[in-house]
């Protein structure tokens, strides 16, 4: 996108293009301080907002969105909390470790070393509640999705999808090759901050 014009999504939602997911997160975080929005959703290169149309007009929302996107200063994410996630690689926990290794022409140990050697950023959460798209994957590990998605992927599974790594926060179906699994609880339904992995957080995987 990167089209810095406000575009209408619906009679109560607008979107604006930005340069990167990092910029989207920064703008979204500041927009969330404005109480006029019911949802503020960063994308990989956009920020979208939703209002109650009986209380706020799209024009009002658009002015605020444009203003905030216009004076975006990239947030310093080096200061963002680093979350260390213990991972059991391979075996039942990472049934596709061998497949990823073969596809990337690496040994399973090299895959583990590259995957746990990188520092990731939670670019966006989407797909399923708390599912984290992690940017920062070593390009040598970029892997195609499975031809047939698994019907049951257990919560905590760590996968690779294209140039992202990701963690399934809940049991569900999924098409990303799985290299490992963490036992760390990634959300608590009753907590005020329900998700450990918020957009912008930095992540490192620690092999167990």
């Amino acid at each position, binding site marked *: 996108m990167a089209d810095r014009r406000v575009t*209408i999504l619906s*009679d109560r*939602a607008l979107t604006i293009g930005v340069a990167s997911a990092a910029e989207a997160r920064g703008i979204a975080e500041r927009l*969330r301080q404005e109480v006029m929005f019911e*949802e503020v*959703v960063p994308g990989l290169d956009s920020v979208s907002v939703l209002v109650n149309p*009986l209380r706020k007009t799209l024009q009002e929302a658009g002015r605020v969105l444009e203003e905030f996107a216009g004076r975006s200063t990239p947030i310093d994410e080096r200061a963002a909390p680093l979350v260390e996630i213990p991972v059991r690689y391979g075996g039942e926990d990472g049934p596709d470790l061998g497949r990823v290794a073969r596809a990337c022409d690496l040994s399973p140990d090299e895959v583990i070393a590259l995957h746990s050697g990188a520092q990731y950023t939670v670019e966006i959460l*989407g797909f399923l*509640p708390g599912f984290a798209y992690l940017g920062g994957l070593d390009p040598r590990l970029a892997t195609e999705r499975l031809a047939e998605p698994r019907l049951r992927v257990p919560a905590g599974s760590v996968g690779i999808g294209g140039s992202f790594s990701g963690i399934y926060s809940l049991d569900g179906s999924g098409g990303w090759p799985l290299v490992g699994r963490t036992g760390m609880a990634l959300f608590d339904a009753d907590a005020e901050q*329900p998700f450990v992995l918020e957009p912008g957080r930095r992540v490192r995987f620690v092999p167990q």
Partner: protein
Amino acid sequence: MTLNVLKPGVQTTVQGSPRTGLRHFGMPWSGPADPLSLAMANRLCGNDLRAPGLEVTFGNFECLFTEERLVAVTGADASVTIDGRPQAMHRALRVGAGERVAIGPAQRGMRIYLATGGGIDVKTAFGSPSTYLPGGFGGHEGRALREGDRLALGRQGPAHEGDATPAELRSVFGTSTILRVVPSAEFERLTAKSRREIFEKPFMAGTQIDRMGIRLKDNPVSLRPAPPMNSAAVFPGTIQCPEGGEPIILGPDAQTTGGYARILSVATVDTYLLGQITPRSQVRFFLKTPEAAVADLVLRERLLESWLGGQSARSFSSA
């Protein structure tokens, strides 16, 4: 003090206020697919309009109350009986202790709502009592109801047996649905021919309709080629179009981001209708400007206010 499930039907879930404000965590809204019908049922029981009630998909539901309660049934047309005695929909009905409420098959529309005085008493998950089936949380144990389930009930507030929704405010559902829509972000990706045909020809709702979305067939849509889109926000009511040309209208449990072209969005005033579109029924789009769509919403709210009070907007809003 419980509602005991005798016949669960194909999919009955507890739904109430949606799980809003968390879409940046990937959290879908959930909540009733037809929030207006649940609001009407809650109104008759003296509840908050978004109190947790039962969403009964396709009907065929039966339950027993261990204590006296007012109940109301709204939404898709269906027969209602209390211990075999025929009852009306859209009416505050008194159910005695030990009596059974039975709801027949849905005739027109797809989802029936059963509200009880004081609402269904369930724990909230992420701030909402609504069931999100793919995540297995919210509602009653995060799942659809089964025979033998016992649901705790809230305390009956002030309400009047025999109260009925004014006839002119009752929604009527059928085998053809016209949805007011506004153009969305990727509307321009439609070919000139599709931009015309999408409003001229009817679609047919697919056979697989769930709370995630409704797939539309029989009127294939063409998109002009474009580079792949980066994942961006979608909302319930967003109409996405994958390259295959069969649009999908997103429902209350839909994902928060997507990479398909967002061609249209259902006007807020009509989103409640999405819960009542039945498989193989006809769907047509009627184009509105965003301003006209909001004006329609304001008019409808004014109409509802006399009956639902100032909180009528809460039937669709998260605030």
